[in-house]
């Protein structure tokens, strides 16, 4: 096995192991920190697959912004920092069965469908900032602009939601109780 393969399996082991810890740990803050490890290892997989710019965007946006947002939400909802016995619902067995079936079905399908296909990484064009920027702004301009409008809409929505005042909430509650 080449060093690329070795590195890939190393990163894959780190990804899967830390992802399992994200969904099983009893400590809220630890879950967010294990998420950092998972996302960083996935960025390494992107680098191996010749997607350089995507890897750095992953580090910047996911590891930088998203995890910080998640940690902020944990602090603002006054998450306890110690271990919590009741973070996981009583439906572990059905959930594990469903997740296992998803893994087996998807995994068997991709292995059966692509077991003899190889990625020629030597011939792949490295998605550097230059290459990605050129394709993004030559070929994908319209989707890019639509996406920026979506981002703006999400931003406005988040601001509106977090600025709802006490009387707005009262109105919402009255309407809810009236319907009940």
């Amino acid at each position, binding site marked *: 096995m080449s060093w690329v393969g070795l590195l890939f399996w190393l990163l894959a082991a780190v990804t899967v192991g830390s992802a399992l810890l994200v969904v099983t740990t009893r400590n809220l803050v630890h879950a967010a920190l294990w998420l950092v490890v998972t996302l960083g290892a996935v960025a390494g997989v992107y680098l191996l697959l010749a997607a350089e710019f995507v890897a750095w965007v992953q580090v910047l946006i996911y590891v930088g912004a998203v995890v910080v947002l998640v940690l902020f939400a944990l602090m603002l909802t006054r998450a306890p920092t110690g271990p919590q016995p009741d973070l996981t619902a009583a439906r572990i067995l059905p959930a594990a069965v469903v997740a296992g079936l998803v893994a087996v079905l998807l995994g068997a399908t991709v292995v059966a469908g692509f077991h003899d296909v190889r990625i020629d990484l030597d011939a792949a064009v490295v998605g550097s900032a230059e290459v990605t920027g050129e394709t993004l702004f030559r070929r994908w301009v319209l989707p890019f602009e639509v996406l920026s409008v979506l981002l703006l809409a999400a931003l406005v929505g988040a601001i509106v939601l977090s600025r709802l005042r006490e009387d707005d*909430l009262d109105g919402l509650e009255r309407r809810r109780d009236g319907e009940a």
Partner: protein
Amino acid sequence: MPLWWPLLLASLLFAIGVYGVLVRRNAVLVLMGVELMLNAVNINLVAFDAHLRDVLHGGQTLALFTIVIAAAEIGLALAVVLLVFRTHGHIDLDRLRSLADRDGLDELDQRGPRLDHRGAR
């Protein structure tokens, strides 16, 4: 590198995300499961981009778009979670029954005290 290596990794990551969404009770932890699933999809996109050597770089571009959408989703979802915390005093999904059928569920809706934006009463 065989193509099925990254695809298998993506399948496993997706399944782990599904497990997290199904089993967690804290709303923020459920969102972490969603992030894991989105990352699994991104691995697929990047792997197929490297395999097909698409001149448009469709896979990598769509992976970037997915990352942006994930950022928008997490921002909006965390605003909703914080609003739920302000009105209910907790974000335990098993106890949030305001949207459920009300018949016989009223006594189960254990609504806590109303909190202001700092989480104080």
